[in-house]
Structure formats: structure tokens, C-alpha cells
């Protein structure tokens, strides 16, 4: 079953603009919500992560906003740069049960930042 829905599939932003990617999930058995950035031919690299007891986390130009009641979280990239052009994945970590520690990924968003 699909536990996480990521949108949009692709996003085009001008240099200096704000990029926003959203994820929604279907149950509450998750304890950690990371975002990964992946460049072509490379493995995913951890960008920023949040735990459910926090509503927002900011690291440099990257911010995660988390809405526990709505089961949604989003990634905001401020002052987007051409070097940010990559595929972004949200992920959820299972908090317990038989899938303890497993990461479930969204479908990915291809971000293109035009100079």
C-alpha cells in the first residue's frame, strides 16, 4: 500500500525563487521524517530531517514544516539556485512493529532551477 504521497512530480523555479515540495502520509506509526537529495548517478544524500514533536526546522536555505494533525510535511528551499537542481525524496521511518527502522520513500520530485 502507498503510505506516502509526494507532490509535485516536477517543479521548475527561477533562480532566487522558493521551491516547495509536499508529502502526505497515511498512518501515525512514523517517528522521523527526512528529506533526501539525489543527483543523477548518485545515491540519495540526507538534506534535512525532523521529528514529530517539532513543527518546523530550518538549516540554511532549507526548512521543513511539519503538520502532525494533517499528516503532512513539506520542504521549502529559499533563494533556489541552479545547483539545487536534483530529485528530492521525502521519507518516513517506521517507529515500531515488524518494520522498525525501515524508511519508506515518496515518489520523488524533479526540481529544475533556471538561472
Amino acid at each position, binding site marked *: 500500500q502507498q503510505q506516502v504521497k509526494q507532490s509535485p512530480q516536477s517543479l521548475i523555479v527561477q533562480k532566487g525563487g522558493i521551491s516547495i515540495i509536499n508529502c502526505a502520509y497515511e498512518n501515525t506509526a512514523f517517528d522521523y521524517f527526512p528529506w533526501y537529495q539525489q543527483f543523477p548517478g548518485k*545515491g540519495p544524500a540526507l538534506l534535512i530531517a525532523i521529528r514529530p514533536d517539532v513543527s518546523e526546522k530550518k538549516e540554511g536555505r532549507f526548512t521543513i514544516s511539519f503538520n502532525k494533525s494533517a499528516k503532512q510535511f513539506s520542504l521549502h528551499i529559499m533563494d533556489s539556485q541552479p545547483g539545487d537542481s536534483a530529485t528530492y525524496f521525502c521519507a518516513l521511518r517506521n517507529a515500531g512493529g515488524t518494520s522498525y527502522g525501515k*524508511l519508506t520513500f515518496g515518489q520523488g520530485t524533479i526540481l529544475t532551477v533556471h538561472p
Partner: protein
Amino acid sequence: DAGVTQSPTHLIKTRGQQVTLRCSPKSGHDTVSWYQQALGQGPQFIFQYYEEEERQRGNFPDRFSGHQFPNYSSELNVNALLLGDSALYLCASSPAILETQYFGPGTRLLVL
């Protein structure tokens, strides 16, 4: 400090063959997870190893098996390869089961 390393980088096999992929975790990491990433998709969890035992398993058939060695390195074995097994296979390591996972560059497998 080397990150997660994987070998080989690319591999071409034919249907029905068997393949072994290898992963060395980051220094200090004892937990290794394997993921399959089909083209244009997010990674899908295959299984996780800790203390040389398979701890968690995703929705993959028994053709997919693994092993973890005393030095924490790991292997992923796939038997009776199918065309649909063509994908990027990613290894991720973490210092414990519930700590952040760091990914290697992956092994690109093509099954003809």
C-alpha cells in the same frame, strides 16, 4: 573518513543468472540496509542487517537474500534474475537501527 562504498558500480547480467553486490558501511556504523530504486521511482526497502542477522524485510521475494559479516560489511544476493530486477541497488548504513541512514552511490544492475 570514507562514506558508504559499494561495488561494483555497474553490472550487466542475463535472465536466470545470479548476482552478488557488496557494501562497506561508514566507519562506526553497524547497521546496513538495502534498497532497490527503479528508474524514476523512490527507493524501496529490501532488508536490514544488524549484528549479522536480518532484522527487517520489505516486500521482496526469497530470491533476494543477504549477509552481514563481522566487520559490518554486507552482501546482497539475487538469484534467478528477472528483467524487472534491473534497477539501482542502494546500500545505506547507520550507527544503529533508529539512527540516520547514509547512502552509498549504488550499483546499477541491468538484466538482459
